[in-house]
């Protein structure tokens, strides 16, 4: 543990990928993990009220955001999803 903590910050940073430039027409693929009772219901209400948001946002229903496992978020990024939005 101690070695990690003492590793020079600069070196650690260099191993990380450089941030990409974001093209203008970028349409992110975003996953929303939403609680059945509140956030999912809110997404439904948005539709009922004909409110609009980018089509790249797709909602996955969960019984409660308590169900969220960090693996889901990691898996989404690993598979190339551009953003994860947890709402509950």
């Amino acid at each position: 543990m101690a070695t990690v903590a003492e590793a020079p910050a600069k070196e650690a940073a260099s191993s990380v990928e450089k941030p990409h430039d974001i093209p203008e027409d970028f349409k992110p693929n975003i996953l929303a993990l939403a609680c059945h009772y509140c956030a999912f219901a809110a997404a439904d209400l948005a539709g009922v009220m004909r409110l609009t948001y980018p089509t790249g946002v797709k909602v996955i229903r969960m019984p409660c955001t308590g169900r969220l496992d960090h693996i889901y978020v990691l898996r989404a990024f690993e598979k190339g999803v551009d953003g994860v939005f947890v709402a509950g």
Partner: protein
Amino acid sequence: MSEKASSNKKGSVLIIGGGIGGMQAALDLADSGLKVHLVQKESSIGGMMSALDKTFPTGDCAMCMISPKMVDVGRHLNIDIHSCSEMVGLKGDAGDFTATILKKARYVDPKKCTGCEACVQKCPVTADSEFNQELAKRTAISRRYAQAVPGAVAIDKKGVSPCRIECPAEVNAHAYVTLTARGRFAEALEVVRRNNPFPASCGRVCAHPCESGCRRKDLDDPVSICYLKRFLTDWEDQQGGFKKPVLPAEKLEKIAVIGSGPAGMTCARDLALKGYQVTVFEKMSVAGGMLSLAIPGYRLPKDVVKKEIDTILAHDIEIKYNQALGRDFTVEDLKKQGYQSVYIAVGTQKAIRMPVPGDKEPEGIYDCLDFLRKANMGETVTVGNKVVVIGGGNVAVDVALTAKRLGGKDVKMVCLEKCDEMPAHEWELEQVREEGIAIDNSWGMDKLRIENNKVTGLDVKRCVSVFDENKRFSPKYDECALNFFEADTIIFAIGMGVDTSFKKGIEGLDLMPNGRIKADPITYQTNVEGVFAGGDSVSGPSTIIQAIAAGIQAAESIDRFLRGKDLVVDRHKLTEREKYTKDLEGIKKSPRKRMPMLSVAEREGNFQEVALGFSEADAIEEASRCLSCAGCCECMMCVAECQAKAINHEMIAEENIDLNIGAVILAPGLDKYDPKVRGELGFGRWPNVVTSLQFERILSASGPYQGVVTRPGDKKHPIKIAWIQCVGSRDKHNANPWCSSVCCMYATKQAVIAKEHDKRIEPTIFYMDMRAYGKDFDKYVERAKNEYGVRYLRTMVSAVREEPGTTDLNLRYALEDGSLVNETFDLVVLSVGLEPHKDAAKLGEICGIEMSNYLFPKTSTFEPVDSSRPGIFVTGTYQGPKDIPETVMQGSAVASQSMALLGEVRWTETIKKELPPERDISGEEPRLGVFVCSCGINIAGTVDVARVVEAVKDIPNVVHVENTLYTCSQDSQEKIKQLIKEKGINRVLVASCTPRTHTPLFQDTIREAGLNKYLFELADIREQCSWCHMGQREEATKKAIWLVKMMIAKVKLLQPIQTETVGVTPRCLVIGGGVAGMTTALSVADQGFDVHIVERDRELGGLARNLYYTLDGSDVQAFLRSRITQVTNHPRISVHTNVEVQNTDGFVGNFQTVLTDGTEIDHGTIIITTGGVQYQPTEYLYNESDNVITQHELEKKIFDGLQPQANERYVMIQCVGSREEPNQYCSRICCQDAIKNAIEIKERNPKAQVAILYRDMRTYGLREDYYAKARDLGVLFVRYDVDKKPQVEKSGNKLRIRTWDYLLNKELVMDADWVVLSTGLRPHPTTEKVGQLYKVTRNPDGYFLEAHVKLRPVDFPSEGIFVSGLAHAPKNLDETISQALAAAGRAGVVLSHERLAVSGLIAKQKRELCMSCLSCMRICPFGSPYIDEDGKVSHNEIKCHGCGLCAGICPAKAFQVNGFRDDQMLAMIDAAAEREEDGVIN
């Protein structure tokens, strides 16, 4: 249960009102085996709570809380919702009532309506949205709000608009005017043409009785309905003219129509539309009758008539010109030619004129018809210089104006009638005057003067009266008053008759003496078989619209005649329906658009059309003046739009049904006070003064401004907002004397939430007393003050005025020191109180229950939910003003009372679905059936559903994909069932709307087809795709494909879930034997279950043993004695005194408890009623002087016969031990105890002096009366602040009190004989221990914390354990009793089941993976993981709610949630990550 009903009792309950209280009662009752009929006046349930934004003191979203409850009620197998209904009669006795319910038509079949709202998009009628408190509009066909249950739309149809009812042809003016106002001209014209094939002609010359009916005429001027029709045809011409309609392919019989006037042509067209082959025979060489021949071109251009005739003829109608009946052919000839029926509409072609002396026709004399025909046909008509037109009707006007155009220099009209009697329309006479034509009234013709065969003038005599007393035409003359009019042209326009020359062509036709044809007034049948007649030839000269009406009726008759139907039956007339007269209050005047006209100079010498027509903008503006009187305009656009065929405008408007029930629960709720009564506050006058309920809608995300705090006046964001409290409450002059109980808190909440929405907002609350008396309310107010900066000003606002030149508001108020202040605010919210709605008294009368003076049902402290009539229970705000949790409590309380009454007939009227055995799919490959719903056009309008089907059809395991119009419709459901069987489908995915409402429906469907119901999923491509990506077809289709693919990935992994059941021990344990415990025990026992009461004291009674009388004078000790006797004598109740609970094991339905005396009890539920204790004061010299006592000690003295002396001084100090740290809560009972004792002292000796030192007098609800009474009796009230508390010191043998008086602004010194301390309540010391025993949490003050402060006020998060009484929070005796009954009701729901079903969507534990790290035990809110006998963690699935917290935290992945397993979630995530094209970032 197994006990069979031996009595006549009915196992069903009627609930009036589907607000939160009614719904709670319905769910409790239906869940406990009683059938429920829920009657709701509106089209949907939800009550007042559904309109609220957030709730206090937790700030939860009201809709999020109530919506799942509504869904539960809506789909409960044993709750029947009777919407749009009212109770109108009630007979019978407790256990066996018959209620008569008046059901009003919804005009939509809720079974067929899918709630897609396609109709709403089409509806042209708008009205103020009641749900949005008039801040937004709704359509006539609408759903009250997005989440409404039932979800079916309803039509607001109040009757028939007056414009429609006046039109003889029943042309739907309301509909086409409304459509015109929306710019929907083609549809508007379609509506006109339904009943009027002459829109262009009628749009110019119709007598427009519709305008005489128009409600707007009572305000300013009628809508210019007539000219709007003309506009529509002008517009059509610009668009390329009329398009030939599609006529029925199959042709019916041949029919001859004689005469091509409006009657004949209308009849011909209507018959052609039905498929008949129609030939019109016309005597003249042009068609149109009077339209062509008699009406001058400057009013109705001839090319317009021609176009109109051509339009009608385009309906495949043949016309034969120059064919006169009796001259050229006979009816007999027609029959021979195969005509099956004949319609005679030859009109009145003979003008009446005065006999001319001599045989020779002198020059210069015309009759009107001849004159006009010649002029119209372009023949030469010579008109002299001096023209006299005889007649005062519309034809005379036409003649006079025509004569003027033909060169008549001096044209004069001479008529019998006086000016105001003339038959010509006022607007026609206006033109006469405009064009300089003189009218000489009250002259009768005497004789014509003829010289040299030329007319030279007319002798006239004075007509003194035209009509007799019966208003019949019977002119009387003054033969001595004579006059002479010189003239070289005289034109008679004094009437027309039938030219009966046609008679030769039809044998045996009966005529009337005046030559008109005799025909039935309804069917227009003549005495000759198959021959019908109408128009002027039957009625005499009349209007075009009358002729059109006659033509319509004849066509109907001819069709019936030829189809062999009865000619009279079911010929509905609009006039048989109720006319609706709209209230004009609050409607602004707006002037009628004037039709642009040719100037008088431009009219001279030509026949150019005078009226120039409306522009598009003018037409829309004029049409928008329509008030939309009767709600729905019956344009029928919705009918065409509804692909589910759910709309039926023909539904019977009202019908009565009888319901046989065992008990009645009245929960109709309250109305809100109308603040217009208090004009000084400016509501209804200043646009930025709103009611609190309007402000709720303003705050609501689904409200008119989508949650952005906006003021209605100018849509700006307000910064300074003022709340004015007690509008309509605590005011016996303008409103209600009582306190509405909720306004202080909701105003505080609104201020806080507004601030959360927009940090810039500066809220101020103007109030009298801050009544934050409920659980955790004081803390909330403190937070509002300290954390949110809400400014509280203890003063009342005397007036609200708009600042001139702005829409800001100036408030005038006095500060406590008396100085007057004017302050400007951007928005003013009136905290309007609650009051019984206008039907409250009527409902009481129907039920035969006693009502109080304030129109609340009479109830008592000890029986707070019982009405005066057995078997009828009252609840919620109908019983008295209260907030949501108390309403919910009473909902469960009345359920409990009903269960106690009807316990033995449970399960006798409920239904249970019989289902086929489940198919075993183990070992089968997944075989998916995918149904992509169009939802009418809701989805298909945006998403290309065919492409979605195409995109997923080749995915492995998908064996069937299809697109369905409405997947939720009955036929689609049947199809799904059939396909499951045919194709061996074992998992079903529907891509349609939200799973939140539709999953249970489809689950039932697949279960009926033998599949486990958990083998189903919904992909939401409506709410979360088509509706939020409208107009983006490509993108939305891609997203829909994506969503379906994600769900397919999950569905492949679905597994059947077997749900288990556990047995229930039908016995209840009650901990605590006070009033709450005893009440709850009695109610549970009355329901038919055994009860054990455990009381740690030696005797029952609890804190109430120290109470003697209540505020309303009821005897507490007598009540207590009787309750103890009831409990101890009840065969089902066992009382254990002097013991406590040692420990309890088990779970809902199966608890085992051991008492300290060793007794073991098995039971299914637990009710905790451990009560509270009185605070023992240490302040104010309590322990140092015998004359410092508590209220309870005083009460005992009074009870023991205390006789106060004259001038004896009692000073009471409130809030002792309450509302300050560390006890920052209100004990709720002390204000009333002080008032109660003060009144008692004053009544015993008015000369005794009582002063009450208080912080806020919290005599909420109806208790306010006693506060007023105490003031009237001379009790002195002095307010103090917590930072300037009163000082008590000894002064000789008296006590001296010093306190700051805020009104006098100086210290007040009082000497007193007695200082009485109003001490607060504390939770009972055992609370902590009991809390630990049952792992139930307590709030910081030590009171038990319920599962949900609003909707589950007597439940604990752990199932099967309930709470009531002072253990929950300080409360009054009646509130304790209500809550105790509620706990009994909730317990009854559990105990009434032999077995309880465990939910399928729960966490499953793989015990072999578990390392017993205890993470799950720490995080589970329901206590379902436990340490088993092996010392390892096990999982009690009965307690599990399936939230998945355990699964999220478990490092070993030992927990998985059914339906949300990791493999399923990851499959969806993987599918979501798959992109059609590569990501843009490489």
